[in-house]
């Protein structure tokens, strides 16, 4: 098990290099440089000379492989560089500032999705074609097909404008500093309700469908029949024997959704004015802020690789049949 993990980690290094090189190349291939945008206002008459100064300052005048090498050597020392944006702050600081809220939102969202999707999936599988199955199927597909910005706006209009029960956007009220501790917390939670509902609604469909499918396959297996034949209660058959096996594919999907946890949803973050990772990344792309884009990509790439590894290892834990490294 340990050697397997180590080997996987070693293999991950060239993979990571490849990913970073490709992303670096692609980003620099995209037309338009940060300096074009900074000096892109005709009123300024920012001369060619001014642009050249900016390019030198950011090292954009060097050939791309030189730029990549210097970026890589800094990365090895965990120096992600400084943002090209006028605040010139270290990339890691910018990410660290945005990460907590995105993580919080996405973890809560994921937990809610699991808590809802697993029972929905199990119930609609065990009562296939029942009314419950049909209703949840329709509901879940509506969720899947609803554009989240549209749902967000409708909910904002209803709960924010018409009823006035919930705040519309942002993370805190404007008088937050003057609230008591507990009011601050409830204010914060109130701000998170709508974004989480919107994000969950869309994500629920996939998960509950996977769960249903997986469960349907499992309940047809012979060991389930034998469990029933043993005279076990239906609750035990489904809840213990079937569910544990049906969870296997879900583990993979969960693993794959880990990197998404820090990616953040651009649409939800923009429409609810939540300063998270999604907004940071999109702005960086529009401004061609290469260090921030690359910093983000590296972190997501590392997380994806780690998540894959964890998923593979977790398989072994959940399912003895695919336990590696134990040959007899």
């Amino acid at each position: 098990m340990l050697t397997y993990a180590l080997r996987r980690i070693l293999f991950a290094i060239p993979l990571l290099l490849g990913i970073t090189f490709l992303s670096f190349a692609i980003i620099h291939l995209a037309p338009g440089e940060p300096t074009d945008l900074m000096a892109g206002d005709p009123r300024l008459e920012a001369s060619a000379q001014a642009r050249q100064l900016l390019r030198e300052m950011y090292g954009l005048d060097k050939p791309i492989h030189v730029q990549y090498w210097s970026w890589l050597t800094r990365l090895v020392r965990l120096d992600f560089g400084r943002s090209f944006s006028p605040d010139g702050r270290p990339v890691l600081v910018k990410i660290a500032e945005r990460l907590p809220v995105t993580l919080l939102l996405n973890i809560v969202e994921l937990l809610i999705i699991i808590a809802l999707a697993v029972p929905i999936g199990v119930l609609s599988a065990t009562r296939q074609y029942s009314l419950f199955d049909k209703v949840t199927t329709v509901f879940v597909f509506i969720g899947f097909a609803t554009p989240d910005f549209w749902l967000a706006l409708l909910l904002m209009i209803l709960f924010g404008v018409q009823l006035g029960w919930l705040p519309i956007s942002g993370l805190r009220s404007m008088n937050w500093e003057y609230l008591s501790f507990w009011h601050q917390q409830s204010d914060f939670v109130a701000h998170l309700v709508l974004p989480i509902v919107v994000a969950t609604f869309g994500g629920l469909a996939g998960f509950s469908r996977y769960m249903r499918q997986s469960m349907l396959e499992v309940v047809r297996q012979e060991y389930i029949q034998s469990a029933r034949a043993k005279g076990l209660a239906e609750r035990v058959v489904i809840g213990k024997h079937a569910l544990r096996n049906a969870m296997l594919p879900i583990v993979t999907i969960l693993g794959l959704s880990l990197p998404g946890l820090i990616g953040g949803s651009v649409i939800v973050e923009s429409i609810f004015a939540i300063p998270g990772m999604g907004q940071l990344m999109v702005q960086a792309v529009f401004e061609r802020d290469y260090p921030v884009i690359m910093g983000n990509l590296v972190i997501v790439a590392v997380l994806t690789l780690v998540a894959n590894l964890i998923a593979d290892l977790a398989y072994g834990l959940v399912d003895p049949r695919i336990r590696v490294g134990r040959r007899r």
Partner: protein
Amino acid sequence: MERGPLLGGLALASALALAGCGVDRGGADEPVAVKDNTPAKGDTFIEASIGNVSALIPNIANDSASHDVGGQIYSGLVTYDKDLKVIPELAESWTFSPDCRHLTFRLRKNVRWHDGKPFTADDVVFTHATMVNPKTPTAYREDFAAVETIEAVDPHTLQITYKTPYAKALQSWSMYMLPRHLLESYMKDGKLREAPQNRTSPVGTGPYRFKEWKSGEKVVLVANPDYYEPDRPYISRIVYRIIPSQATIFLELKAKGVDGASLTALQYKRQTEYPAFRKAYQRFRYASNSVTYFAFNMKDPRFADKRVRHAIAHAINKQELIDHVILGLGRNATGPYLPGAWAHNGEVKSLPYDLARARRLLAEAGWRDRDADGFLLKDGKPFAFEILTNQGNDERKKIAEIIQAALRELGLKVDLRTVEWATLLKEHVRKRNFDAFVLGWGLGRDPDMTALFHSSKTRPEDFNVASYANAEVDGLLERGRATCFQDERAKYYHRVHEILADDIPVIFLYHRDALPAITARVRGVKPSPGGIMYNFHEWFVPRELQRYTAG
């Protein structure tokens, strides 16, 4: 060139969602009536900003949000009044030598930086040094590079000499002044971006002091008790809330979550006419200092023919564009200057909408429908071209569509393409790799159009995108830059305006209206050609209407 809002599609979605709201016409947008209408200090003004604030030293930033915030924290030697006239700010007065090369400023004596240190001529010299330092990442260098010498004669007198007479000399000193005692070492090392003043503790001389910046969320400013104008400002706190979606900003307005925001034409016309909104907000409408235009690539032999440009101009019904695209909330543009501005020539008319004349002109230029398929041909080739515009700007896309339909009528085959902003600039505009495009210009405060229409400005990095060359215009623009007397400059620009309207290197379409909504609590908002923000420090909320007591 201006960039459109990123999330234009979202605005449309909200428009659809809100179309059911009641409509009430009649009654003016007026502030709430109260008994005691005397100016009072206090309250918070929450402004919605669609763009992120990127830096707190605006001299090195170029996004409008950073300049909005910076404009309250810092001041220049001069500023603009409601009619965009240059007036003193940190300067008390100024004099020009008759040859326009020497400019002398006398500075106010009672001005202190937010940290208590006095503001002196030395700081102005420092700001100049910062702007011309090659290590300063600023896009505003050019104006200051024109200075030959700058000298602090005494702490409150400044002597500036220009290499040649420079028309923009005076207005260039509206640049934000920076404190030498805090920034000198950062400036010398070229590390201005990393200075704490750029992130956590900016120090200026403006009416507001910095309190807090939560990246991507908000910037908070509080009134400066030491501001050099006694008893100003009135409003105690400004919060800039960063909300990247136009639709969300509008919903926040409806829920009274923000006190000031810009409306879209659709919101102004169709979604804010109901009584509750009219009671809560004062809406304003004034011509924004921008122009939307259609540009030709004059390197293309087809468009090099003036008759063809005239024909296309005759085929575009500007009033129809204004009515349909921005619901009538704009003004017909005859040139690059706003009606009423001193450089604007009121006698210039735009070409009338006249399809018959357009057809005649095209026929004269050799474009005829030879095979009766409805499309014009010349030398066996059909008149086909492409109109580009930037992605995410619905308004410009609609303009392009209407123009496409109008030109189809004439027998021109037009395709449309929307391109991402940076790509459009780099691959098409810079390389002059286009037939025609629809974009907008922010007009700036000075009427000098050298960058846009002088024949020397046609290299890839320049902005004479139409590749326009006219010796008379070149001469007029040069003379307009070389004098500091406004009435003399006005003569030159009136003539430039006239020539451009006849040569049509670009078709100026319209000046769209700015449509801000400001909470009805606030008094003292006076819309004018200069906008509404020029007198923000005079705004106040009568005591009984104040909403936020804390701070």
